[in-house]
Structure formats: structure tokens, C-alpha cells
């Protein structure tokens, strides 16, 4: 087991390195002159040269990468071109905001997806199954930004149930924060809920078709006991991994939700920075998200390996 964990850890480290390489090359591949971007149109030649020297653009590329990586490891993600503030500082504000949306969305997908999947599996080919399946297919196919706009139109503009947009930290005003978060959570979580519902349904169905379930039923155990004790546990393994691996999609989902709902998280900052060519910020955010995904994948792999002995020895 220990060997397994160490092996996975090493792999994760390599992946992280490759990720940093990928992120680093994003800036270097940009057409145009980043220095002109930073200083604006009025700059004279000497100031430009000075800045170039300072930012290390005159060094050979591998050296630039090494310097940048060194800074990153120490937590220095550079300075925003627009605000001149440290990227790390800015992200400190933004990450909790995104986390709030992401966690809420995750909860939504669990709360809707799991029970829906279980009900669908238990009522196979009857109307609850069909209903859930329709919902699942629609949920996966619906563009989330469109759903967001539709929901704002209905719930905020027409019925005034929730405010139109904005963000308040729960520390400042808990209930207002909750009201503002309902729609974003729902929109960000619905895709995951749909996927989860399908996975749960098919995993549970697969398990229910197994011999040992039939044996348990033959033994005379009540249906409920059968499900609880035997089926669920085993069905949960693949489901759990899907949940863990869905972190990437979850973060991508919160990105667009932040944009439409005007939530000042990492996602919206990323889009704004892209439009204003604020490369250090783009790099910082992409790196943070990438690291999150790699970490969660690692955890899932380890958990999976621990739960299922067959996998450990691949």
C-alpha cells in the first residue's frame, strides 16, 4: 500500500511540473510585446528596456522558467499588470469566494444527484426512472450560462424572490449571502447532479444485477436490508471516484456562473484578466485550478486504491 501511495505521489509531482511548464509557456507564446502592455503607449525606449531587464525577458527561456518556478514555489505569483498588486494577494480574496460557490454547487449535485439516481435504479423503467433520465439528459445538455440568465429572468426580475446579482461574504451578512448564492449554486451544480444521477443509477443497477444480491434475496433478507447493506456500499465506489474526479468540471462550471452572476471569484477575474491581457493573473489562476484538480485526482486515486484491492496492483 505504501508503495502504491508513493508511486502515485511521484506521478502527481511529475504532472504538476508538466502543468507549470504548460502554464509558463502560455505567456511566452503570446504574440505582441508584453512590456508594451504593461507600460502603456506613452513609454519611452529606456523604460521599456529597464522593465524587460527587470522581468527577465532578456534571459534565455529555460532560465526564465527556472526563475519563475522558483518564485512560484515560494508563493510569489508575480504582480498584476493592471492593479500592480501581488497576484497572491488578489487570489487570497478571490479563492474563498469561488470556494463558496464550488462547495455549494457540489452539495447541490450530491443532494439532487444521489437520491435521484437511487430512485431511478430502484424503479427501473417506471416513471420515476424516465423522469430522472429526462432531467439528467437535459441537465447535461443545457448551457449553464443560458440557464443562469433564464433563472435570473424568472426568479429575480419577474418574481423578485432573490436579488439579481452580487456577492456578500457570509461573514458580513449571512442570510443575504445565502439568498444571493441560491441561484449560482443551483446553476453550477445541476450539471454535476445530472451526471451523478446517471452514474449512481448505472452503478447501482450493475450491482443489483449481481449474483450475490440474488443470493441475499434468496436468503430471505428484506429488500431494504439487501439494498442498504450490500448494494449501496459496492455501488458507492465508482460513484465516489466520479465525484472526486468531477472537481475539474465543477471548477469550470463555477467559472461561467461567476461571470453571469457577477460574483467576484477567481473565475470572473480570469475572464477579466484575459480580456485585459493581464498575464500574471491568468497564469496564477490557471495554476491554482490545475493544482486543485491534480491534488483531488491524487486523493481519489489513493482512496480508490485503498477501497478496491484489485486496483492497487495494476
Amino acid at each position, binding site marked *: 500500500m505504501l508503495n502504491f501511495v508513493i508511486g502515485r505521489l511521484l506521478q502527481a509531482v511529475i504532472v504538476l511540473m508538466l502543468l507549470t511548464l504548460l502554464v509558463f509557456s*502560455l505567456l511566452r507564446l503570446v*504574440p505582441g510585446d508584453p512590456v508594451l502592455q504593461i507600460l502603456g503607449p506613452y513609454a519611452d525606449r529606456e523604460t521599456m528596456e529597464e522593465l524587460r531587464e527587470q522581468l527577465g525577458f532578456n534571459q534565455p527561456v529555460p532560465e526564465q522558467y527556472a526563475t519563475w518556478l522558483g518564485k512560484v514555489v515560494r508563493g510569489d505569483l508575480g504582480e498584476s499588470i493592471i492593479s500592480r498588486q501581488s497576484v497572491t494577494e488578489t487570489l487570497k480574496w478571490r479563492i474563498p469566494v469561488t470556494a463558496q460557490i464550488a462547495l455549494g454547487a457540489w452539495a447541490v449535485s450530491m443532494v439532487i444527484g444521489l437520491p435521484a439516481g437511487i430512485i431511478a435504479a430502484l424503479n427501473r423503467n417506471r416513471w420515476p426512472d424516465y423522469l430522472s433520465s429526462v432531467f439528467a439528459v437535459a441537465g447535461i445538455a443545457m*448551457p449553464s450560462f443560458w440557464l443562469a*440568465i433564464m433563472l435570473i429572468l424568472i426568479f429575480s426580475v419577474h418574481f423578485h424572490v432573490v436579488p439579481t446579482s452580487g456577492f456578500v461574504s457570509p461573514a458580513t451578512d449571512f442570510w443575504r449571502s445565502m439568498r444571493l448564492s441560491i441561484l449560482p449554486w443551483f446553476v453550477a451544480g445541476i450539471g454535476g447532479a445530472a451526471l451523478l444521477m446517471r452514474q449512481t443509477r448505472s452503478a447501482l443497477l450493475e450491482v443489483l444485477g449481481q449474483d450475490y444480491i440474488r443470493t441475499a434475496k434468496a436468503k430471505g433478507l428484506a429488500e431494504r436490508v439487501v439494498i442498504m447493506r450490500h448494494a449501496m456500499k459496492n455501488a458507492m465506489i465508482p460513484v465516489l471516484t466520479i465525484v472526486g474526479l468531477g472537481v475539474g468540471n465543477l471548477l469550470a462550471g463555477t*467559472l*461561467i456562473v461567476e461571470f453571469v452572476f457577477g460574483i467576484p471569484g477567481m473565475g470572473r477575474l480570469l475572464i477579466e484578466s484575459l480580456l485585459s491581457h493581464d498575464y500574471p493573473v491568468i497564469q496564477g489562476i490557471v495554476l491554482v485550478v490545475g*493544482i486543485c*484538480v491534480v491534488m483531488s485526482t491524487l486523493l481519489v486515486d489513493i482512496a480508490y486504491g485503498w477501497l478496491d484491492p484489485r486496483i492497487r496492483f495494476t
Partner: protein
Amino acid sequence: MTTIEQSFDVPTPGRKRSAYILTQLLRRRTAFVGLVIIAVVVLMAILAPLVAPYDPLAQDIPASHQMPTLSHLLGTDELGRDILSRIIYGSRSSLEIGVLAIGLGGAVGVVLGMVSGYFRGIIDPILMRIVEALLALPGLLLVIALATSLGTGMKALIIAVAVGSVPHFARLTRGSVLLTRELDYVQAARTIGAGNVRIMLQHIWPNCLQPIIVQGTLGIGVAILVAAAASFIGVGVQPPTPDWGLMIASGHQYVFNNWWLSVPPGVAIMLTVMGFNLFGDGLRDALDPRLRGAS
């Protein structure tokens, strides 16, 4: 990505097998519905000039912001262009991106997966780590990240979405290859002395085909969604091209008063992606031996 089960048997005569798959498919209502939707969208795209009542780029400002009427079935947008016509032409944009991106990404991904799975050795772990690194940046995030270097516009978008789909195809293919290469007849071919390329093409490739086709179908749906989101943000297709994501974006400023600017394109995206998803699911079920006979 959803897991795709593999079915292996000794290759059977082609015609009998495809006929079987086809009947399996058509027996499933949902898959059939999906196929119909795809067919409608493809036909819309091909026959757009014949089907669309107006030129999608023809502006008529005095007639802008009109509600759906008999002359404009879905109303007019902020520049007086007919929304129905733009929806019809928009299918071209979505299909073009979806098919080209998945085609490109699929091709690259499959080759990577084949090489990785067949030759193993040191290439395998390296390629797989690269694939994992790419996977760390999901969908829209990767498109945005690549937009810094590639810029905006349809070409850049297609490349970005293609890059995003490479890891999925690579892993899938690699999985198939790993399983196939252990089969008896493949070993046999090796012992006889058949060349690697020949083995890959003749024996391994046919067995990879099924999951790849399923992944491709589902992938087109995902590609269309990601492309629409990118266009919505402003880093994808540029105006005045009729594109569903772009239509939602430009209609967004007026949506609270003129809902018909944003609702139809969203419905169009949803139905199209649903079509690909339903068909892909049906395909997967039809090709999965364990679900044979099950409804």
C-alpha cells in the same frame, strides 16, 4: 467522461455486425430520437440557404426588437435580423466547430493512445503524464488559457477545444490497446513476425473503434457546449457570424425585456447537444455486450 465498456470478440463479418448494431440502436427510442435530432441539425446546416426565410446578416434597424410575428417567426434581434434564420445558420457554426475540433483532437488523441498503449516502455508514462497535465485544466478553463496565446475567432476556438479533447481520446484508446494487445491472435501475429504498424492497423484498431466512435459522438456535444460558452464570454466566434453562443451573448443586454433574443439559441444548443448525447448513449448501449437484450 463517462466510462465506456469494451466488447471484444473475434472479428465477425462486417455486414452482419453492423446490421445487428443498427437494429439494436433503432430499438431504443431515446437513441432514435437522438439520431433524428442530429439529422435535423445536419440538414439545417446543409440546406440553410434554402430553408432560412431571410439572410442572417441582413439588418433592418427600423424593424429591430420585434416580438415573434408571422413574418418573423422568432422575432428580430437588436439589428433587425431575423432570429429564425440566424438560428438555422447558427447550426453551421456549431457543427463546424464540433466536428472539426473532435476530429482533430480525436485523431491526435488516438495516435497518442495507440503509441502509448502499444509500445509501453518509457513513452507510455511520459505521454500519460502529459495527458494528465492537460486534464488538470478542464474544458472552458483550457480554452481561456489557450486564448491568451491563440487569440480569438473560430480557428483558435477549434484548436483549443481539440486540445481539450485529446486526453480523453488518448486514455480511451490506450485502454483499448492495452486490453487488445494481450489477446491470443495478436500475440500470434507477433510471433509470425508481422510488423508493428500492420498489427496496429489490422488487429488493434478495429477493436478500438467502438469506444472511439461513442466518445466522438458524446465529444461533439461537449465541444458544442464549450464553444458556446467561449463565444458567450467573447473569446470564441466573433460577430457578425450567426452563432448560438454569440446570439445569447448579444441578446443578453436586452433579455429582461426582449426574451426572444436569448431563449431560442439556448434551446437550440440544448436540443443539439441532447441529440448527440442520446445518440452516443444509445450507441454505447448497443455496442455493449452485457446490455444486449436489456431494454
